[in-house]
């Protein structure tokens, strides 16, 4: 057919369709871990601003552990280690729990610095002009906090999207998993991995541009 191309376009298209199937799973795992990470992060950031010393210490220990252990090791503990103890988790949920647990440690710091960036005088002022605590939260605190927190959370989400690649090691059927499968059945290593890399790039690059825009906006707003 097209002799100019170093690969068979029809075959490339076939590969791409299979990889796209993996991309759906990649997005699902990313979204799931992001939700887990945000919930964990919010809860732990709230605890860190509380006055219970032991609770704060527990959060600090959690953050330190999950900052210092590789995601792959954690995934293996969750997937293979727990299976050995008789607790069987499917690959995708294990991935969401593992990546989400690590993300929670990262986002706790993000949310906490977001909370701290807002002077508590803001809330007091809002209450002083007669707002209810709910109103102060809704109209004063939240709109400012979201602007501070959104760019780092966005950056985290992009990192997460790429981190999901290692989930293929516990056989969750995402992009890299299908790529490895295609390679073992066709031996077209170059083509398959270039396509997989391109697919990741097409997902993360636009996201990165959006986050850059948000960061610029935030800088001009400050």
């Amino acid at each position: 057919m097209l002799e100019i191309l170093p690969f068979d376009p029809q075959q490339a298209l076939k590969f791409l369709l299979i990889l796209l199937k993996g991309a759906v799973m990649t997005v699902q795992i990313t979204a799931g871990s992001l939700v887990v990470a945000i919930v964990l992060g919010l809860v732990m950031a709230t605890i860190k601003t509380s006055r219970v010393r032991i609770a704060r210490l527990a959060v600090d220990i959690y953050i330190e552990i999950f900052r210092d252990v590789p995601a792959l090791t954690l995934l293996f503990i969750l997937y293979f280690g727990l299976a050995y103890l008789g607790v069987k988790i499917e690959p995708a949920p294990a991935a969401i729990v593992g990546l989400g647990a690590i993300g929670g440690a990262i986002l706790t710091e993000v949310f906490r610095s977001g909370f701290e960036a807002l002077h508590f005088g803001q809330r007091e002022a809002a209450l002083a002009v007669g707002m209810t605590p709910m109103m102060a939260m809704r109209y004063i605190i939240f709109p400012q906090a979201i602007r501070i927190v959104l760019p780092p959370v966005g950056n985290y989400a992009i990192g997460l999207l790429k981190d999901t690649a290692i989930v293929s090691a516990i056989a969750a059927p995402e992009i890299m998993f299908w790529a490895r499968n295609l390679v073992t059945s066709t031996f077209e290593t170059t083509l398959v991995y270039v396509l997989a890399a391109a697919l990741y790039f097409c997902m993360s690059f636009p996201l990165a541009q959006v986050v850059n825009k948000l960061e610029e906006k935030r800088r001009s707003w400050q």
Partner: protein
Amino acid sequence: MGFWQGYIQNWDYWWPQLAVATGNTIALTGLSYLFALTLGIILALGRLSRIRFVPGICRAYIEFVRGIPALALLFLIYFGLVPLGIIVDSFSAAVIGLGMNQGAYLAEVFRGGIEALHKGQREAALAVGMTPAKAYRFIIMPQAVRIVLPPLLNMLIILLKDSSVCSLISTPELMLRAKDLASMSFLPMHAYLLAGLIYFLMACPLSLMTRRVEQRLRRGMRRITA
């Protein structure tokens, strides 16, 4: 107590292997960090240079590498180049892959450090009679280091953890050894927990030090601006 039995029985067999593998992980991390630092400085200078096409090429590299997972890059280098006749052993592929990946991130760190310094600083230093070398030594460097050092240390921690991914291209490092031991002894929980502990023992001092440095530098910065 049944759980500890697994460690006690296998300890004599496990620990020499894990020690070697941990050494490999450290070597892998150190080498790829050196590579990444070099690449990062070159790319940062390239992005700021005025030679035509050079900033564009550097930017394209940085954006592309930052847009794909480290694992995809490792697979491309280790498996993807084989049909083109380029065969790299797994350790070199790991060093190159991790270095290329981190280099793109470090380039942005260095660029941020260089750009954060107003060029008026250098001009002012020259105006008060400093030589360019003195201006660099006493004005530019001390400030640039403050900006760049914390992210550089953070990157080292990230690199140490990312090196575990190289086990997937069968680089003989800690995670691969743990995987071997797990499948040989049928004790996955023991092996992976131990691997996690070793990573933690390496990364925790680094991350505590990073936070110490961050706090120290923040104190210094406040004194400057005040």
